[in-house]
């Protein structure tokens, strides 16, 4: 006779949390989390204690106090009577300006160089390799400082433009002045009626977009591509230009002119801004060029050959077959290069460009003695920008994945 024992249910033992694979994953995570929280609190506590020993506290009140210092490049109104908070904001805008303009030029240059590096012309390809290796392999700080030195040492002082027989003259019909303090361009002045011009311009662009969509639809249905390029350009330019003269030239240019120590009016691009933006754009463009090249090379040669055998011309092959697929590969690393450029812009301090590092993390930090607070805010800012940019990458990846049918 055999007594059938009830199925043995193993009783739960504490050690199973680590030995049993069913629980191990979760318990390890919980342990890590606890350690993380403990370390975090220890850090905060330790910091506060040590600051207290130095007789300091943590307070962000300084952001609301009068800054007392001037900033040369301001995208929003700011005087020495404004608050430290506003000074920080002026700096943030200056950082974003460099990042934006830098990314724009880096992309254009990078695309151009990347494609040319694949050229069949030996000389062109070699020149582009030299460009890429040159910019990629020298620290960007050196480029910034070098370009700045070139801009300040080899350009005339505003004084040189003075007198009946000046040593230096302005370029392009007396409209652009290149000096050792920056370059002055004519600034557009928007008079009465400019609004209508803007409206007509936006309308033209909308019409062009509509035409493009129509042409695309036609192509999908009939296989014929309509010649839209020249028509689009005419639609964008002609009505707005006509209106411009009709209303009586509402937009005029304000030319820079020399008065006292410096040029007045016009748009003043300071050498610190030029050097920083140029160096960052050149440096980053070398990386972008390689990304573009890799993206194009990743598309198998068979596709080019197949397209060619269908009778497509080379530029059609590039535009219709290669680039759309290559972009999927290019865009994510491209955006992370934008991120790098933005972070590298904090090297602005080397040339005295007043970015957020220069205002909040520089002068404000020094004058108020709020090192910890300023650094935390600064890190918070760069973190936000980084998270924002990487969320764009993620969004892109999700929406442009190859849909497997």
């Amino acid at each position, binding site marked *: 006779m055999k007594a059938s024992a009830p199925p043995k249910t193993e009783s739960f033992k504490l050690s199973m949390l680590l030995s049993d694979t069913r629980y191990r994953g979760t318990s390890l995570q919980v342990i890590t989390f606890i350690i993380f929280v403990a370390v975090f609190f220890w*850090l905060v506590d*330790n*910091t506060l*204690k*040590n*600051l207290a*020993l*130095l*007789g*300091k506290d943590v307070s962000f009140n300084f952001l609301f106090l009068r800054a*007392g*210092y*001037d*900033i*040369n490049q301001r995208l929003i109104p700011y*005087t*020495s009577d404004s608050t430290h908070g506003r000074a920080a904001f002026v700096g943030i805008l200056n950082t974003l300006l460099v990042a934006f303009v830098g990314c724009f030029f880096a992309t254009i240059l990078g695309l151009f160089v990347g494609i040319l590096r694949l050229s069949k012309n030996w000389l062109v390809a070699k020149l582009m390799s030299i460009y890429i290796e040159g910019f990629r392999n020298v620290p960007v*700080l050196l480029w910034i*400082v070098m370009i*700045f030195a070139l801009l*300040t*040492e080899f350009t005339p*002082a505003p*004084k040189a433009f003075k007198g009946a027989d000046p040593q230096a003259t302005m370029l392009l019909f007396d409209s652009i002045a290149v000096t*050792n*303090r920056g370059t002055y361009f004519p600034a557009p002045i928007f008079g009465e009626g400019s609004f209508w011009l803007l409206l007509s311009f936006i309308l033209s662009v909308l019409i062009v977009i509509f035409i493009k969509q129509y042409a695309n639809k036609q192509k999908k249905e009939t296989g014929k591509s309509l010649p839209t390029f020249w028509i689009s350009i005419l639609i964008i330019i002609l009505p707005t230009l006509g209106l411009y003269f009709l209303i009586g030239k509402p937009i005029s240019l304000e030319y820079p002119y020399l*008065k*006292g*120590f*410096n040029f*007045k009016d016009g748009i003043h691009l300071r*050498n610190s801004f030029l050097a920083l933006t140029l160096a960052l754009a050149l440096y980053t463009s070398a990386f972008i060029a390689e990304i573009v090249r890799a993206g194009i090379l990743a598309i198998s040669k068979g596709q080019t050959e197949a397209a060619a055998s269908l009778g497509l011309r080379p530029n059609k092959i590039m535009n219709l077959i290669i680039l759309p697929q290559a972009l999927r590969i290019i865009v994510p690393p491209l955006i992370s290069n934008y991120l790098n450029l933005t972070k590298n812009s904090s*090297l602005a*301090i*080397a*040339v*005295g460009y*007043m970015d957020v*590092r*220069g205002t909040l*993390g*520089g*002068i404000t*930090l*020094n*004058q*108020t*003695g709020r*090192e*910890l607070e300023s*650094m935390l805010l600064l890190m918070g800012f760069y973190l936000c920008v980084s998270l924002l940019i990487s969320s764009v990458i993620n969004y892109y990846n999700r929406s442009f994945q190859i849909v497997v049918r």
Partner: protein
Amino acid sequence: MFNAVFSQIILVLLLIKIIFNLKGEIMRKSLFMVLSSILLIVGGQAAFSGGHSVTLDDVKARGNLLCGVSTGAPGFATIDDSGKDVGFDVDYCRALAAAIFGDPMAVKFVGLTSAVRFTALAAGEVDILARNTTWTYSRDTDLKQTFLGVNYYDGQGFMVKKDLGVNSTLELDGATVCIQVGTTTELNLADYFKENGMSYEPVPTADNAESQQQYLAGACDTYTTDASALHGTRVNLENPDDHLVLPEIISKEPLGPLVRHGDDNWADIGRWVLNALIIAEEKGITKANIDSWKDTKDAEIHRLLGTGDDDILAMVGLPKNAMYNAIKAGGNYGEIFENNLGATSGINIERGVNASWTKGGILYSPPFR
């Protein structure tokens, strides 16, 4: 330019140092405080002497003084052709080292830009700052520094090239101005131009060298900083006569050595070494004649030089002849001034208000009693 970037890195490192309490002194101090509070509870009475300085203990244990000076301000702190640190601020630290160790060379100089100096002091990177630093309310209170006195009454000035044709700061409307960041200079500048209804374009730089370079390249019309440093900088330019320090002084810049809050006894030591140098000048004690005062009837001199019976310096933990050594190191205040800033140095700054009160100036030390 690289200095600017390095300062930033240093700043972050110093901050980490503060956060993680890597500073030996604070660690020991907190241990000390825990111990002493236990003592208080257990024994009901504190058992430490009033004249105890933790910083002094550290300095003695290390065997040298860490003195923060500027990265290069002619007359105040520079490095001469033979690689030796020289200058007005340097000589003060040598006197302090001599007071502690009897050896004016027992000091290590740390060059600090305007921007990192206070953080470096707070983090314990240096024991004392003697770095043409202006005594202000917010530095005293908000930045938690203790100023030990004034060793130079200065004011902010402007230097221009003569061919600019400017003879007064009031003619500088619209000018581009080179300034160093993290200074009182940039704040005074903003206030002065605003008060006078003038505009200007600031060009921020990290240190004297960079300001000078930008100024010489013509990237700014005028260079502004403490007038003393301007004079020192000017005589070291290639053609000093092409440059002019404008007559207006737009601010008060009382410069002096400073230490961090929290060690009053250390502050006392630094303060009284400075006072000793000033008193020595009042009394006519010089580097050369310092040994000839043994028979003087002036009791204060005996107290100062440690030639009397009382050993009043033991109160702050210094040897009896500490001030003798301090004065012997580089001479009295007047000698240090002459050698670094006055006629002997070639910079030719007049004593002016910085003369002893006995000679019409405002330099006046409390009595050594």
